[in-house]
């Protein structure tokens, strides 16, 4: 329980610092910390494979790509004048409404009839990666193939977008 609160505090506070810091590079660093917190949350939920993937793919690949692009483009810090006050007020109101909505919906309880038979905590002891892999290559084989085609399309798209003529 205390572990959950520590990890939740890390991810929320660094998320807040991410959206408030002016310098994009600082933002990326806070974002990495936030993602590490989320990876810890995954660990407390018995999803160790996902925790590792989170660190490797998100922190290791995606955010390094972000850093790379930010430094490549030499972005100046956002202009203070463009941070207009009305926009912030609207954003705060919309955020509060959304938060209220989600909290109300999530406190209505869970339909017990959809409960499965896999005890995730027990699976984590026996080997979470093995269980995930078995499911991935049996029931989820078709989505898995589609996702690999999606990745291929993304590679081709990124190469075409990166050409000089655009």
């Amino acid at each position, binding site marked *: 329980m205390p572990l959950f609160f520590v990890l939740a505090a890390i991810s929320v506070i660094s998320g807040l610092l991410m*959206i408030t810091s002016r310098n994009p590079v600082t933002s990326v660093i806070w974002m990495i910390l936030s993602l590490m917190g989320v990876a810890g949350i995954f660990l407390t939920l*018995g999803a160790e494979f996902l925790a590792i993937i989170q660190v490797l*793919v998100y922190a290791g690949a995606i955010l390094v790509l972000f850093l790379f*692009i930010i430094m490549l483009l030499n972005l100046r810090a956002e*202009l203070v004048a463009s941070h207009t006050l009305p926009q912030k007020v609207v954003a705060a109101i919309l955020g509060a409404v959304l938060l209220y909505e989600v909290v109300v919906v999530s406190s209505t309880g*869970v339909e017990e009839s959809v409960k499965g*038979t896999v005890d995730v905590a027990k699976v984590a002891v026996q080997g979470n990666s093995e269980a995930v892999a078995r499911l991935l290559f049996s029931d989820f084989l078709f989505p898995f193939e589609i996702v690999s085609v999606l*990745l291929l399309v993304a590679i081709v798209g*990124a190469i075409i977008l990166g050409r000089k003529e*655009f």
Partner: protein
Amino acid sequence: MAPLSYYLILSALLFVIGGVGVLTRRSAIMIFMSIELMLNAVNITFVAFSYYLNQLTGQLIVLFVITVAAAEAAVGLGIMVALYRNRESLNVDEINLLKG
């Protein structure tokens, strides 16, 4: 072990932080990062439900979400490089090429 609602509220908080980031920041790259934060918030919900409903399916979906996020980052950052080449700026207030 923290109850399910704690995880859902944490997820809601992160999602709202991402949403406010999208609404307040003006740099396209920051908006993009806020969207990634929102995707992460949804991932927490999936994994929490996977734990409390005794199904591994939620973890599989998160795996696919992470893959799609990686593909999205590659294409999105490609678009940003192309934009920057043409307009010398990533400020979304100045990018109004499609405005009628």
